[in-house]
């Protein structure tokens, strides 16, 4: 080989550098505190967690429940006293209806009490399907779906549609279940004042100007408005014609 001298010297230096790098210690980017084993054990000994739950004072108003004995209908026996019931959500008075009770008895004799499984694994009964059809006809929609727990209905439905990055316009006085659903969905939440359509319109117009600034993002963000028919916290009805 005929190679110039500087070439050989340069290659020699490079090879020596590589050998040095191969044998040197690895270089950690962030020096974690290298505590000795003894110090770690001391830290573990010293650490005291908080108690699992803080103690609750004995006279907390929500601690001692009222005991209801007997059927909770419009006349209710609370703590031994008979009262007129203005506290349950028994709007149509169907808790005491004989037809409802006899239908429930018949189904108890046919199906037992529990379903022993989720809807996907042999937990779908013909009565579930019938109820869904009837609900869809009653509400005049195409289809309906039922859940076994009222709180979980809206708290599961919202994160099913609205994902991270979508925008939800919610009334301020939305109930707790809706708030939990929104928290689980991780979307952007914009609150508007209770039953105030002008405020909602202002927010929607702001959103429109945002969209025009960034049309690519606007094409993939979904928007939802969540309102209640009859608000649990304030008792008002939402102005549906204006909303639509």
């Amino acid at each position: 080989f005929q190679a110039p001298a500087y070439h050989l010297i340069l290659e020699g230096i490079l090879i020596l550098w590589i050998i040095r790098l191969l044998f040197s210690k690895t270089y950690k980017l962030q020096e974690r505190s290298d505590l000795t084993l003894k110090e770690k054990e001391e830290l573990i000994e010293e650490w005291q967690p908080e108690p699992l739950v803080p103690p609750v004072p004995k006279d907390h108003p929500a601690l001692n429940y009222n005991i209801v004995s007997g059927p909770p209908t419009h006349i209710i026996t609370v703590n031994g006293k008979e009262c007129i019931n203005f506290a349950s959500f028994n709007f149509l008075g169907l808790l005491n209806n004989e037809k409802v009770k006899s239908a429930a008895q018949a189904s108890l004799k046919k199906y037992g009490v529990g379903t022993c499984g989720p809807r996907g694994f042999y937990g779908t009964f013909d009565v579930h399907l019938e109820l869904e059809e009837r609900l869809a006809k009653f509400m005049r929609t195409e289809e309906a779906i039922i859940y076994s727990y009222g709180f979980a209905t809206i708290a599961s439905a919202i994160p099913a549609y609205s994902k991270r990055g979508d925008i939800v316009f919610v009334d301020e006085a939305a109930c707790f279940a809706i708030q939990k659903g929104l928290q689980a969905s991780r979307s952007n939440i914009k609150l508007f004042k209770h039953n105030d359509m002008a405020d909602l319109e202002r927010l929607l117009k702001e959103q429109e100007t945002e969209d025009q600034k960034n049309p690519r993002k606007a094409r993939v963000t979904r928007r939802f408005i969540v309102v209640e028919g009859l608000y649990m916290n304030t008792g008002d009805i939402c102005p549906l014609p204006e909303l639509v």
Partner: protein
Amino acid sequence: INHIVHNGGLYKRPFNEAFEETPMLVAVLTYVGYGVLTLFGYLRDFMRQWKIEKCQNATEREEQKDFVPLYQDFENFYNRNLYMRIRDSWNRPICSVPGAKVDMMERVSHDYNWTFTYTGRVIKDIINMGSYNYLGFAQKTGACQEAAAKVLSQYGAGVCSTRQEMGNLDKHEELEKLVARFLGVESAMAYGMGFATNSMNIPALVGKGCLILSDELNHASLVLGARLSGATIRIFKHNNMQSLEKLLKDAIVHGQPRTRRPWKKILILVEGIYSMEGSIVRLPEVIALKKKYKSYLYLDEAHSIGALGPSGRGVVDYFGLNPEDVDVMMGTFTKSFGAAGGYIGGKKELIDYLRTYSHSAAYATSMSPPVVEQIITSVKCIMGEDGTTIGRARVQQLAENTRYFRRRLKEMGFIIYGNEDSPVVPLMLYMPAKIGAFGREMLKRNIGVVVVGFPATPIIESRARFCLSAAHTKEMLDTALKEINEVGDLLQLKYSRRRLVPLLDRPFDETTYEETED
């Protein structure tokens, strides 16, 4: 990997758990299968987009055509092209009590599973290996059902109010005292839905500044509860105590991620039986770790309560440990008790705190009275307080069924995951086409099974899951095993490379729980 552990005296009984590895050829063929399905999926999407083929999935109405689409095309790819092909294995409607045998409504599809029509015929007496009916309390006759009927006529079907308002019946108080006695804890509280018990009470116990260590394969309710609480979540490998110990050590020594402040508290979330793997948590080791590192333990016994243990009191009873060591014992009434709802048991301060601060007590309706009565009767039956030995006999029968079924399946050569004693038996299928084929073939032979694929399991590890019940007689199990053997030969499912020598059938007696056969 086969673990038979007698870890320094912590375990009183051998702990047999096995997760056989996927054979290499099967894994490669499964990936090839998914690849072919994906290609076909793209082809069908292309044809649907260019209107060569009719598009049958949900689309917006004409007036809303220029809204942003509700279902992103790509997210729904799996749904449209893979799930739709085998959709008839799920959501099968039944029309009788979900006991050991069910009647199923026959349904056909003329457009490849996009819509179903019911022919009106009923397929009778299908052996039910899919419902969570571990102790056989899903009955339409018997003491439980009669008691529930009486309470229904007396109290009505619902309550219409929350626990903290007018919804606390005397029945609820009775139920909670009984559950506390059954579990061996100071007090307990019951809720209307098992899923909601987790997702609404974990946020009440931990918050920002706390650490949650949860198992890899925890149920969606635990994951949702942990997310909603706002605490930091760290995941340790499934049932791996070394991974858990490493995480605990690192957490206490280094503190919170950036500020290095010490954690307020550490909560370990584990389940009693994991429903997709059939494995049982290594509870003695978890409790030893918990005591050493001063953290709190939240045990979710959704599947294991009633199903494990010599007296049916769950995984704590199975290992012979003290229930007071577990800080929060949670469970559901849906599976072994044939009702609905969940409970949390623990020390009195914990339950008092949950009575005031739990989201469910404040905002959600309480349990309905006939369901409460069903639970009360079934718990009394298991404890033996109703004067019969039905409860004890059922627990014993379930243990016998479990061991027999698992041993026979292993002898046939299938790959079965999980612990020897768990009544949840996953049988590995791996390939996507076999998922649908297994479900349909078993239904033709009058056996109802549950098959699971992605996303409930990792993509190549799809499986069929059998849930054994005390209501299954030996004849039913033998019939089922014969059919599974046939279908296994037909679909070539016998992947296992280890063969057990078939043993002579030994009669089961009091020594069942003292030693294991091998």
